[in-house]
């Protein structure tokens, strides 16, 4: 049985991807780590771990703790800063082939625009993802919880560079739709949904939090329904493409996000417990699209039927 030709290309605003399977920031190192386990060239996009203007040591361990079907983390944006990234990590990433979407986090709106300007035009940088949603950083402004500040950061970055811009949002808000609309108004090419859900774990016998940082971000299969809900709600409210993130670990998970309204997906925590999962999903994608009679990804995006009983 031969599958009819299926096109996997997707368009996220000004960013074109060979396929919709990306790997999420902070869950794939700087890609070099995975060279022995994943055929990196085949991925649709790679998001290296978020970088900041200055080096950050990150939070004290324990930085992760497992919970039921999930993982709590408080890594704290441990990284060597933007200059070390450009000098030592970007050259390798640039040679891999897939779109390299550089994830940046600033403490202020100015820091976001400075970092965007610095990365603009560098060989290998295909787009930026604005991490305005990390729950582990104190001292910074939570741009992602407020529509006005979210819009402002996206606008500033758009003005500072010519790169496509993805805004990555936090689910830890009362109304994610209003923040997403603000990101779209600010000029985002696409919206990434979601970052981790704020949570905690307690060791009652010692009356201690299990995480060094007390609170952390929950990821993994446990948060998939929350992420699907966010994609579904936002898809009905904005016109720009969405990228689904949260608990994706199989082709079924991936298809659920596409049907709910995502144009592409990012694989996160699943790479920790199944290192080759991103390519397994990619291999299964043409067949799954064919099952729905689709010949390209866009044919299934947002086709969820909520009317018919």
């Amino acid at each position, binding site marked *: 049985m031969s599958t009819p030709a299926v096109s996997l290309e997707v368009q996220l605003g000004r960013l074109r991807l060979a396929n919709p399977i990306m790997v999420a920031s902070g*869950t794939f190192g700087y890609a070099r780590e995975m060279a022995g386990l994943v055929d990196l060239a085949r991925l649709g996009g790679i998001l290296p771990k978020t970088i900041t203007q200055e080096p950050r040591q990150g939070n004290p361990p324990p930085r992760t703790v497992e919970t039921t079907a999930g993982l709590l983390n408080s890594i704290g944006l441990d990284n060597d800063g933007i200059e070390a990234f450009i000098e030592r990590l970007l050259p390798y990433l640039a040679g891999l082939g897939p779109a390299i979407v550089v994830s940046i986090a600033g403490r202020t709106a100015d820091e976001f625009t400075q970092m965007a300007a610095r990365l603009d035009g560098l060989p290998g940088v295909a787009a930026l993802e604005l991490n305005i949603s990390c729950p582990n950083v104190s001292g910074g402004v939570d741009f992602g919880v407020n529509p006005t500040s979210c819009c402002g950061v996206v606008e500033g970055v758009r003005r500072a560079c010519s790169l496509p811009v993805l805004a990555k949002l936090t689910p830890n808000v009362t109304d994610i739709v209003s923040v997403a609309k603000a990101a779209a108004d600010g000029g985002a090419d696409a919206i990434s949904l979601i970052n981790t859900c704020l949570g905690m774990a307690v060791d009652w016998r010692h009356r201690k939090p299990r995480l060094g940082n007390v609170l952390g971000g929950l990821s993994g299969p446990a948060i998939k329904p929350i992420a699907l809900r966010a994609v579904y709600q936002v898809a009905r409210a904005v016109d720009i493409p969405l990228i689904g993130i949260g608990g994706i670990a199989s082709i079924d998970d991936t298809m659920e996000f596409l049907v709910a309204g995502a144009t592409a997906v990012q694989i996160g925590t699943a790479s920790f417990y199944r290192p080759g999962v991103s390519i397994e999903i990619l291999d299964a994608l043409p067949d799954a699209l064919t099952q729905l009679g689709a010949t390209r990804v866009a044919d299934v995006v947002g086709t969820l039927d909520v009317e018919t009983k």
Partner: protein
Amino acid sequence: MTDKQSSPTYADQAWQGVTTIVENVQLARDTYRVRLRCPEIAQAVVPGQFVMLRLPGSNDPLLGRPLAVYDVLADKADGAWGIDVVYLVVGQMTGRLAGLAAGSLLEAWGPLGNGFPPLPAEHLILVAGGIGQTPFLMLAEEALGRRRFGNPPRKTPLADRVTFCYGARSKDYLAGVEDFQRAGVDVRLATDDGSAGHHSLVTELIAPAVEQSGPAVRRIVCCGPEAMMEATAAEARRLGVPCQVSLETPMACGIGICFSCVARIRDASGNWDYRRTCVEGPVFDADDVVF
């Protein structure tokens, strides 16, 4: 050491897949040995490296668990075909693993980590607390010239003598002592309750072992609970013997992509930074570790 965001020991040799349990037997109290058929890992692993093991088809527990490779099974026809992992039942995954019968499947990826560097030592002194003994059998077999590991098999300077100082809570927790004796290792025991060997901390066995070999080139290698590794590092410094420790930092991925397994490691200038033990370790020079 290289800069923080790169490591010479990424999982480039690692294989990922489903392995079959060939046998799963109890060795001591709460302690089991599982034998896995996985030629890819068996052929590549060197002493001190570890694998990540995970129960298939279950999201609870979700993550793999890091476990040292205890031994490599090989025969004339197939070469290296399997690995032994010795584990202590402490929680969810190890508890379920203990209940799995031969024929059951496990997900695995490895070999991972740097392993023990092939440094010269006429007298190699292994110091283990509890289940920390697991990475030492292969190291001893290699140092005594009985086995070679890795693909291609790595060359290591040979030792004239290997002493194994092994401490446990009590006699019934001691596992694999005969394996070490069969390999030609001089085993010295210590237990917290005096039920076997010396009624003392294992660290008290180090100085007598060191003094025994006269003016030889010595090296201490240690694995166990953090306080015990710290005490061993201090003892090694006092005795003027170089020492490496293998850290047992909890890990979420084992392959360098999550940044959760960090330990405080000194650089050449004496400042410390958080480093990933799964790709830059688990073996470090004791003097570089900030306990």
